[in-house]
């Protein structure tokens, strides 16, 4: 009995200290550690590319720490894409039409890739690899959905799908074009992107006029039939 009580006491204190330790410090920094590594990885991106080892090293961790990311480089790339998509909300839009807003937002997003320099090509090839394709398509969808939302799109039917689908294709094509573009300020990429966007809006306008024409003629035919039967 005499022996048991101090032992009991120590166990309790250890538990109590563990608990306070866990809530006050570790749990928070432990939860944030992956994020810290990714943030540092983004800072080092222009020099070291998508590799995560330099980031863990500069945080004073061993290279092994990068293994908490099962997809390695691709996890950093995904984090980068999420951040870039979120940044679009702060772009100051000057256009009044949705099409103009879309153009501005796509340009802003493409020009943000400029800081990647030689690592853009690696990013594009990772995004296109079959292993990561489901994830990259999800990121691409989030990006174009954000762009159409910020541009004030109010599609409630098939246009919701066609607009997102075609913008995704245009964006992906422009980004691939960008990897081989050496023109100052990526002038060629932006004009390539504009050509695709113009072609798309011409197509959408044509499709709208055709359906308008059908609607008008259906009503006209009905009225002719009505006047003939009375």
């Amino acid at each position: 009995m005499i022996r048991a009580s101090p032992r009991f006491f120590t166990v309790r204190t250890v538990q109590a200290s563990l608990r306070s330790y866990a809530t006050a410090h570790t749990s928070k920094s432990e939860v944030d550690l992956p994020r810290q590594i990714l943030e540092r990885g983004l800072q080092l991106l222009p020099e070291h590319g998508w590799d995560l080892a330099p980031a863990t090293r500069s945080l004073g961790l061993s290279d092994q720490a990068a293994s908490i990311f099962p997809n390695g480089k691709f996890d950093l790339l995904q984090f980068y894409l999420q951040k870039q998509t979120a940044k679009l909300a702060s772009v100051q839009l000057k256009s009044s039409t949705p099409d103009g807003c879309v153009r501005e937002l796509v340009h802003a997003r493409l020009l943000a890739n400029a800081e990647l320099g030689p690592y853009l090509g690696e990013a594009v090839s990772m995004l296109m690899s079959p292993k990561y394709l489901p994830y990259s398509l999800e990121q691409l969808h989030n990006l174009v959905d954000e762009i159409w939302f910020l541009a004030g799109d109010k599609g409630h039917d098939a246009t919701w799908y066609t607009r997102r689908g075609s913008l995704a294709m245009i964006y992906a094509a422009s980004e691939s074009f960008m990897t081989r573009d050496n023109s100052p300020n990526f002038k060629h990429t932006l004009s390539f992107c504009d050509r695709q966007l113009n072609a798309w809006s011409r197509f959408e306008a044509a499709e709208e006029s055709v359906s308008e024409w059908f609607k008008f003629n259906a009503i006209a035919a009905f009225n002719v039939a009505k006047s003939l039967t009375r």
Partner: protein
Amino acid sequence: MLRQSIKAVNNKSLKPAQRKYLEKVIRVDQAGELGADYIYMGQHFVFKQTLPKLAPLIRHMWDQEIHHHNTFDTIQTEGRIRPSVFTPVWKIAALGLGMGTALLGKEAAMACTEAVETVIGGHYNDQLRRLSKEFPETEEFVQLRKLISEFRDDELEHLETAIENDAKKAVPYMLLTEAIKNGCRGAIFLAERF
């Protein structure tokens, strides 16, 4: 109420499964109100020619459905939820159903309303039950439930209007209403998922 409902759908503290359920709710309700909107559009179009006396009544119900439809359209856009893939199909089917039953006559049109509103009212009730069971009791969810229950009450009012206007005298009543009810159930099944 609309602002709060949008906040409820965009609530960041929801679990993924809860958010998924809300997406389903908004998608199917938007498709359903679109269908109702187009059914009354078709009926109104026909009755304006054949039974002008009935047109104002249809117009009144149609206006309520337009309001419901616009509300869910706004929630769908602001809540970042994809609309149903079959939206063009719902449009054509609903317009066809509205015009077809109106061409059969007043009783058939009212039987159509009765069948549709019975299924829709029951479906709204299922949603309300689950929304009150599995979601927090915060202001925004209370408001979302209030919005849906208000719409359900409108639909049930249409149901009563239809019965008062001889819906039960439609021939063949059973065949017509059961076929439409099953069509609605199938459409709900598809619109929730795709």
